[in-house]
């Protein structure tokens, strides 16, 4: 039903209903209602409407309403509990402090922007140049295609890897360099060494089934790491991981860390028998798991750095190596390509007479690098500020074994009570084993005698001499 009453009259009726009209207004409207049937009907309908609305049912009382409100309040308070690591009242002060720190850091950055920019420029330039100047071009492939557990163990113990057995080319990591280490690629085979196979190693240490699995995992991971450490580019560039010298010590330490103390003694005896250049000193009896050992293989969390050498240039560069993609390439018939590249690279590198020597830009640990290529031998020498003779993983030191005949020299003998006694040492003075321990391990070492020996090379290092 549509109303025919004008809106202003409706509002008057509505106000009359609510008692909002003045006496005069009410009289006028009531007179009209008496005279106008439509207006009267409309007003009666409004009265009835109000009555209907007022009569709408109410909700029954809720006796538990307060209980629910209280629960809701408690829940809200729980949600608002302070999750900050300091009282909420400190928040403005913390925000202010954070603001000051951010502004301060910003100012420092702005003030040092030139040196920061220079640093990044050098970093990016080194990498860009490596690519732009054709140092490493095209796909990279592993240098070695014939690695197995035996060869990996051989490298770990003796630091040598046959590159091309037919032509007698060998890669050798020589960690006896006095100021750093040396990576050599040479045509002549190193002096005859007594090989140690994995089978012989296992026979000697008699691992349990689970130990055997752990040792296999460690050797497998070491093999993969080694594969990724020496690479060859499409342009015959050779890239060698600068941490290669560290890898073999890490593998030896890792193998020892998986063994029980008695097995470690047997392993050391085996190393001595085979005239391995290392000796192992273990200061912890804790037996480690494979995962932990494998983690120690990775020297830098930023990724590996490579010395990239071509016939006419050399660089130190960091680049990411996608080994999975590389293995994929190998499985797609790249074995022949690898052999070809390897042969070309060795021929070009070893047979070329060249010499580079210079500082390394923007590298904190390796200030100088030299590459010499002559007489069928490529030698890469990396000078380190903090050259160490040994490696330390899991409180196990792997150090060069010094031939007894080289022990002649002056030394300071440290007594248990403290202080030191100067003296001389000759190889004939000792019977039994001689362990060379890197200097940081001497402190706290339970040795009968620790001596500081001044070798002919004038290189200071410390000895743990056990009769």
């Amino acid at each position, binding site marked *: 039903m549509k109303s025919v009453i004008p809106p202003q009259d409706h509002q008057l009726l509505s106000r009359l209903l609510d008692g909002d009209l003045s006496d005069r207004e009410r009289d006028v409207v009531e007179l009209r209602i008496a005279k106008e049937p439509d207006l009267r009907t409309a007003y009666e309908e*409004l009265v009835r*409407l109000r009555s*209907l609305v007022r009569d709408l049912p109410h909700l029954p009382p809720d006796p538990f309403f307060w209980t629910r409100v209280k629960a809701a309040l408690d829940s809200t308070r729980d949600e608002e509990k302070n999750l900050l690591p300091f009282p909420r009242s400190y928040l403005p002060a913390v925000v202010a402090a954070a603001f000051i720190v951010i502004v301060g850091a910003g100012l420092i950055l702005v003030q040092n922007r030139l040196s920061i920019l220079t640093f990044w420029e050098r970093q990016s330039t080194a990498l860009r140049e490596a690519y732009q100047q054709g140092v490493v071009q095209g796909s990279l492939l592993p240098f070695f295609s014939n690695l197995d557990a035996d060869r990996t163990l051989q490298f770990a113990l003796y630091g040598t890897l046959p590159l091309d057995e037919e032509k007698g080319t060998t890669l050798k990591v020589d960690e006896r360099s006095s100021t750093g280490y040396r990576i050599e690629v040479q045509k002549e085979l190193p002096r005859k060494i007594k090989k140690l196979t994995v089978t012989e190693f296992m026979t000697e240490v008699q691992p349990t089934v689970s130990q055997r699995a752990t040792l296999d995992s460690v050797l497998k991971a070491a093999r993969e790491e080694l594969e990724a450490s020496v690479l060859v580019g499409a342009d015959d560039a050779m890239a060698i991981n600068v941490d290669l010298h560290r890898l073999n010590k890490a593998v030896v330490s890792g193998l020892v860390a998986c063994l029980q103390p008695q097995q470690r003694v047997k392993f050391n005896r085996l190393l001595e028998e085979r005239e391995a250049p290392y000796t192992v000193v273990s200061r912890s009896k804790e037996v480690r798991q494979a995962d932990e050992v494998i983690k120690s293989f990775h020297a830098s969390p930023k990724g590996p750095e490579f010395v990239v050498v071509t016939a006419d240039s050399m660089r130190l560069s960091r680049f990411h190596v996608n080994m999975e993609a590389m293995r994929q390439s190998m499985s797609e018939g790249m074995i022949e390509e690898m052999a070809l590249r390897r042969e070309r690279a060795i021929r070009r590198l070893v047979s070329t007479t060249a010499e580079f020597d210079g500082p390394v830009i923007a590298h904190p640990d390796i200030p100088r690098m030299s590459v010499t290529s002559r007489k069928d031998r490529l030698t890469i020498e990396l000078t380190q500020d903090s050259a160490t003779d040994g490696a330390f993983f899991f409180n196990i030191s792997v150090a060069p074994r010094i031939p007894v005949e080289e022990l002649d020299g002056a030394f300071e003998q440290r007594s248990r009570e403290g202080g030191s006694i100067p003296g001389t040492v000759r190889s004939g003075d000792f019977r039994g084993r001689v362990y060379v321990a890197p200097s940081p391990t001497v402190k706290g070492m339970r040795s009968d005698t620790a001596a500081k020996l001044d070798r002919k090379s004038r290189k200071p290092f410390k000895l743990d001499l056990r009769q």
Partner: protein
Amino acid sequence: MTTPSKDVSFAQASDDVLITLFQNGDQRAFRVLVERYQERIRNLLFSIFHEPDFVDDLSQEVFVKVYEALPGFRFESSLYTWLYRIAVNKSRDELRRRKLRRFFSFQSLDDGTLAELETRMAHPPKDHESADLVAYGLRALPDHQRIVVILKDIEGFSYEEIADILQIEVGTVKSRLSRARTTLKNILGPIIKERIA
């Protein structure tokens, strides 16, 4: 402002006294206030939504909001109208949310309500059905008109109080109420005519 005495009975204390006690840290005063107004707020919300379960949830939210805001209450209006303002604002928020949901789901509840109402109005309603139809009629009103009718005819507020609660002019209240009543009268015509006859 009356200074609350320790001897004042909570149940007999005025709103202002209870608020002052609460603002001074007496949590018991809040319970008295809740119990004093809970049924009115529940019924106000029931008039707006006609959904008992939802009304209970929304009423709780209203009193949680009151609990949070009461420490800052400045006695510039009566607690009564202030409480209703919070409840009405909560209702508006909810109605807005529902409208948004309808918009995104491409449905029109208003059309559905009116259609159902017209179908039911085709036959004369029985007495017990009248209340339902009036409730349906109210729901068919635009939100801003429905709330004015409820505040005036159900809750019995004056124009000034409604203006205070809704934060609008008194003149707006009068015109909005007149339009709402006209619309509702047109919707519920058969019931009203029958009762007059």
